[in-house]
């Protein structure tokens, strides 16, 4: 049932992105907002990403959903800039399958160019589980970074917990959970 609904998710407008503020402690201002997926199912109501993202990873729908998320992030950057908040970044999560698509970096480059956004304002969050192949991850991250975007490692410390490999990754930020 979830899977069938998921196939129609994008053209039926059931998916939306909500934004959680990230506060910069030096300026005491919102410096970034993280876009988080919400699926409003017509029958089942709100379905949390933890429930449908694994299905979407499995059946490949994560690719169009992931592209949609990046487009929405860029749309949000335009909205923020037009409201005088051109200093605020928008961060979105990347999924493992999306990240390893051969055309992933060129897809991002395309969106940045047609949405005409400042790439420095677009931040991507990856997880430690996506970095298992250090060489390949480093290569993709370098290509991605060359577009001007920022990269964070989400949930750091819960997976491989190795600070040493961080040296080879062109990343900007670590996210740590208060409870981990």
């Amino acid at each position, binding site marked *: 049932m979830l899977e069938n609904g998921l196939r129609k998710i994008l053209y039926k407008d059931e998916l*939306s992105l*909500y*934004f*959680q*503020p*990230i*506060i*910069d*402690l*030096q300026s*005491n*201002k*919102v*410096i*970034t*907002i*993280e876009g*988080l997926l*919400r699926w409003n199912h017509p029958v089942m109501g709100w379905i949390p990403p933890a429930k449908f993202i694994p299905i979407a990873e499995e059946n490949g729908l994560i690719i169009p959903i992931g592209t949609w998320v990046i487009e929405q992030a860029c749309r*949000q950057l335009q*909205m923020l800039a037009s*409201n005088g*908040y051109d200093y*605020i970044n928008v961060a979105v999560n990347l999924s493992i399958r999306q990240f390893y698509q051969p055309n992933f970096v060129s897809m991002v480059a395309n969106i940045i160019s047609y949405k005409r956004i400042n790439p420095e304002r677009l931040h991507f969050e990856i997880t430690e589980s996506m970095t298992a192949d250090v060489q390949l991850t480093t290569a993709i991250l370098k290509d991605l970074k060359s577009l001007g975007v920022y990269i*964070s490692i989400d949930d*750091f*410390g819960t997976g491989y917990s190795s*600070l040493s490999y*961080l*040296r080879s990754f062109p*990343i*900007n*930020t*670590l*996210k*740590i*959970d*208060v*409870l981990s």
Partner: protein
Amino acid sequence: MIIFMAHKLGLKVIGEGVETSEQAKFLTENGCDMLQGYYFSHPLSEDELLCYLRKKPILNN
């Protein structure tokens, strides 16, 4: 420790999942650069976000 090492590598650190003022204080004192969590705000729709951005200040230092 992670925060100290991250700074040594030139990385910024975001503390997420912050739900209480004690947690915010702890992470701030331990050198986090940025904080995120329900203590500050739950995920917002576009309209709610604009309202949130207009009201200041965020922390009562």
